[in-house]
């Protein structure tokens, strides 16, 4: 049952990502991106990362996707061009050079994974032996909160400041210039 659900989510993610790449209409592609993000959040659940999955849905679907839709609609000259360009074809014909590059990279990574399986790192083997994996009954959110405030307090503060800098920079970049 568990693996059937996993394969369903994986197929949903990969399939809609493939369709996303080949669609011509950007609005449809962005909504397919939404489906990919949901399926990825589902996959995180199978790695028992429930908090990461919820954060993914909140941050990506609530923030990033809305921003992308706004940017798409604000650059609407492209939208009209896209609608005019679609001369009968539903799928767009991308640059062919990208296909062998991406496929080659995929083959390289699959080969790397297969090679890697022969020598699993010792810390993973230790966690198998000592039975210290995360299990489904753990209280993940409490543990993550504790780690954030103890082990990882410096990265946490750094990333807070980084996020604030990025937001100030974004609002500065997208301001209206008066004297032009």
């Amino acid at each position, binding site marked *: 049952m*568990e*693996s059937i659900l*996993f394969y369903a989510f994986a197929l949903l*993610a*990969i399939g809609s*990502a*493939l369709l996303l*790449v080949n669609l011509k209409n*950007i609005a449809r592609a*962005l909504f397919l*991106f939404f489906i*990919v*993000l949901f399926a*990825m959040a589902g*996959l*995180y659940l199978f*790695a028992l*990362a429930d908090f990461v999955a919820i*954060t*993914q849905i909140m*941050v*990506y679907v609530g*923030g*990033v996707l809305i*921003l*992308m839709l*706004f*940017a*798409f609609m604000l*650059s609407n*000259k*492209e939208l009209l061009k896209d609608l005019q360009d679609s001369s009968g074809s539903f799928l767009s014909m*991308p640059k062919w050079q*990208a296909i062998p*590059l*991406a496929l080659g990279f*995929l083959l390289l*990574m*699959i080969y790397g*994974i297969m090679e890697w*399986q022969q020598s699993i790192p010792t*810390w993973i083997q230790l*966690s198998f032996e000592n039975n*210290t*994996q*995360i299990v489904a009954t753990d209280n*993940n959110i409490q*543990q*993550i909160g504790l*780690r954030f405030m103890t082990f*990882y307090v410096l990265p946490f503060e750094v990333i807070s400041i*980084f*996020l604030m800098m*990025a*937001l100030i*920079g*974004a*609002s500065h*970049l*997208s301001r209206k210039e008066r004297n032009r």
Partner: protein
Amino acid sequence: MITLTHFLVVSACIFCIGLYTVLSKKNAIMILVGIELMINAAILNFVAFGKYDKISYGGQIFGLFAIVLAAAAVAVGLAIVLNVYRHYQTINPDEINELKDK
């Protein structure tokens, strides 16, 4: 039983689709979508490895950090895209070939 390899293969596929999007699309917004796909593949790897790390929860916590970084990147990237559109009336990266004001 879902092993680590399953996660790794799925995330390799998603990463390559993101790479393909970045290389082949002629629209800056779709290129940002491709970058997001690649970041998502990386986060999937983070949480898949994090399952075996109960002591420090490194995988999940750095997955969260990666989500924050991706959100910041998208905010700045879309602001730049809008500015570029205001200057050039296009967001095709192939046609944007000068940094100077006209």
